[in-house]
């Protein structure tokens, strides 16, 4: 009788361990989640370089764009209608697209970004434009924070055409980041 009880206890412990191992194995995916808040050219560039390297290594990539970074996703060819006064002002003051971003340092009234893009070309670094194209082909997902898009006065109609673009809230980032083995905030 005692032996049986001991066996039962062991059985239970094994079950418990099995569940723990399963949790560990399924807990984190080979996935990179980045919350990109900065709209500085250098920071968006860094985010894209890391994302492309990760995707090239078959890591699933999810980019959560919010606040200032949303300016990088504006399509300069699109002109949304029906904005209120403040939204229009924001729209005018913020960069219209990824080719108009400023540097966090040495911006020099727009001279800095021009010099950087010249240097990038000279040293064969992919342009930001090309990086977005590659990212789309690699299946990198872009998730736009709906709330901050509203704050910035941007509209869905002015965002770039991108293959894996969706709109969501903070909980989506939390859920995605929770199952990612790498989480970054830029």
């Amino acid at each position, binding site marked *: 009788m005692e032996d049986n009880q001991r066996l039962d206890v062991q059985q239970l412990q094994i079950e418990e361990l099995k569940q723990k191992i399963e949790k560990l194995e399924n807990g984190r995916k080979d996935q990179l989640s980045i919350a990109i808040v900065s709209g500085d050219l250098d920071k968006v560039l860094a985010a894209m370089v890391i994302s*492309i390297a990760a995707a*090239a290594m078959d890591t699933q990539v999810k980019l959560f764009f919010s606040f200032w970074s949303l300016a990088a996703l504006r399509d300069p060819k699109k002109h949304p209608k029906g904005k209120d006064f403040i939204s229009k002002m924001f729209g005018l003051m913020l960069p219209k697209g990824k080719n108009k971003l400023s540097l966090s340092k040495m911006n020099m009234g727009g001279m800095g970004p021009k010099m950087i893009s010249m240097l990038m070309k000279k040293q064969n670094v992919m342009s930001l434009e090309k990086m977005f194209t590659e990212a789309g082909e*690699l299946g990198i997902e872009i998730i736009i924070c709906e709330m901050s898009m509203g704050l910035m006065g941007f509209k869905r109609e002015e965002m770039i055409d991108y293959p894996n673009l969706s709109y969501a809230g903070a909980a989506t980032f939390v859920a995605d980041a929770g199952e990612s083995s790498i989480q970054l905030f830029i």
Partner: protein
Amino acid sequence: MTAEELKSVVVARTIDARGTACPGPLLEAKKHIGSIGAGDVMEILSADEGTKVDIPKWCGKQGHEYLGTVEENGYFKVYMKKK
């Protein structure tokens, strides 16, 4: 593998990624890895110093075998064997 041994390796495919900086060469390698068979050797040409370190990391993660790097005049030849 030594540089001498690498010279005699049969290369199934050569990727010339000398016209692109990080992460370009890695991306080129990923794009072309599907075009060679298991056990085949791919040679990646790169002028980017980082590639020497990045390709072995990529191989380590994907289970491919990194064979070695040969330094040429102004660029590198990185060899890897597909798993």
